[in-house]
């Protein structure tokens, strides 16, 4: 196999066994041969070419590398790829359906939740995890759930609005939602 550390070592070390792992990524089973020290973020980006998972700080602070691991948000720069063996991982590439964006993605588009977009994948996955657990969050709950994700551009206001928009949309028109809850007051 080609080493996923080609920049420092062309061959995997002979004394460190490479492991075959199988991960369900965005619903698809995928295998790779990895050294134990390979980080999950690098597996996703380099082995699986899923470059929507960003690495920003690389120190577990910014949350740009957030993915869902068995449905829970984790910082993929701080997990080993081997730990994903046999588990399910969802990246930002897995959010949209075949032809439709995920409501969280629509929310970020409609409410201007991004500028450079660097933090956006992590924000969206943290938001999805929140909405899966709590479909009707308050603004404070949204801010709380996203507090492990840093944005250097938008100042959070529109990000929070985007998530609340998505919550409305996901609850559907029957619950008085449908995306209009945060519009101007109806006459």
């Amino acid at each position, binding site marked *: 196999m080609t080493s996923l*550390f080609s920049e420092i070592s062309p061959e995997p*070390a002979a004394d*460190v*066994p490479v*492991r075959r792992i199988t991960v369900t990524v965005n619903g698809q089973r995928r295998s790779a041969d990895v*050294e*134990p*020290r*390979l*980080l999950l973020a*690098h597996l996703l980006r380099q082995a699986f070419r899923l470059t929507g998972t960003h690495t920003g700080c*690389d*120190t*577990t*602070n910014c*949350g740009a590398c*957030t993915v869902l691991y068995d449905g*829970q*948000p*984790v*910082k993929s*720069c*701080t*997990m*080993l790829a*081997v*730990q994903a063996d046999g588990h399910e991982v969802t990246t930002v590439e897995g959010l949209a359906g075949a032809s439709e964006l995920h409501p969280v993605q629509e929310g970020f588009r409609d409410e201007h939740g991004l500028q450079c977009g660097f933090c956006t994948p992590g924000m969206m996955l*943290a938001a999805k995890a929140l909405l899966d657990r709590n479909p009707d969050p308050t603004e404070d709950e949204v801010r*709380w*759930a996203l*507090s*492990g*994700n840093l944005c250097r551009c938008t100042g959070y206001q529109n990000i929070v609005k985007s998530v609340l928009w998505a919550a409305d949309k996901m609850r559907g028109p029957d619950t008085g939602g449908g995306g209009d809850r945060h519009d101007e007051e109806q006459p």
Partner: protein
Amino acid sequence: MYPSRFQYEAPTTVEAAIDLLHRGGGEAKVLAGGQSLIPMMKLRFASPELLVDINHIPGLDYHRVDPDGSIHIGALCRHVDLEQSTTLADAQPVLAAVAPLVADPIVRTRGTLVGSLCHADPQGDWASAMVALDGQVVAQGPQGRRSIPVADFVAGPFQNVLAHDEVAVEAVVPAPAGTPAGGYLKLERRIGDFATAGVAVALDLVNGSVSRAGVGLTGVGSSTIAATDAAQALVGAALSPDAINRAADLAAEAAQPRSDHRGSASYKRQVVRTFVVRILTNVLESDERAA
């Protein structure tokens, strides 16, 4: 940044983990949530030759309150489990107050209380709460199990007293001798930051009188501080503004803060004092409301 090379094993029993650690002869490390260990390995502050990943051992992710009132928290119980637990909130207000203040919500999905105690960061929030509660760590090694008070378990900055072939299997909070009360306050510059200063106060109340007290301080010394004089000043009487002020002064004296980018030593001392007053005043006021 990636760690230096290591061997990786994922045993499925505690015994097998102990065996691996034993054979690792001091060059092996346990991987629990990895939220401290992996960053340390990426920075090459830690370069274990062998990682023993305990995440595949079933039955370690519990937290429960036993019939005798003691609380047991398994080595794979995540911060988020404690944060969301109503059982814990009912049984022990101090632990419930800490859970949402550790790191950030995403780090909390992986990190564990037991891992945090093992990591023994002087800025660790759980250790001071556990010290205030007279908590223990249960360690299992080749010779069996032993219980170590958290106050002795934390040997110094980033040092615990585990032998190289011991696994910390659970943390225990003894049954309260009365109604448990108290809290945890932490000053952080932003969410996910370590404490500028943190204070845990744990009380057991019997007929309004304090039958037991513990005070633990976070981030104001080279390791977790047990402010025993402050705690002692509270025992044997009902809470009063005088007793509260005295305890707060003694806690501030017990702190050994250093000036750094988070604040000056005297500022941190003042924060400790203020937090003791706030936690205890809150207990006093809710006691009065209940009466």
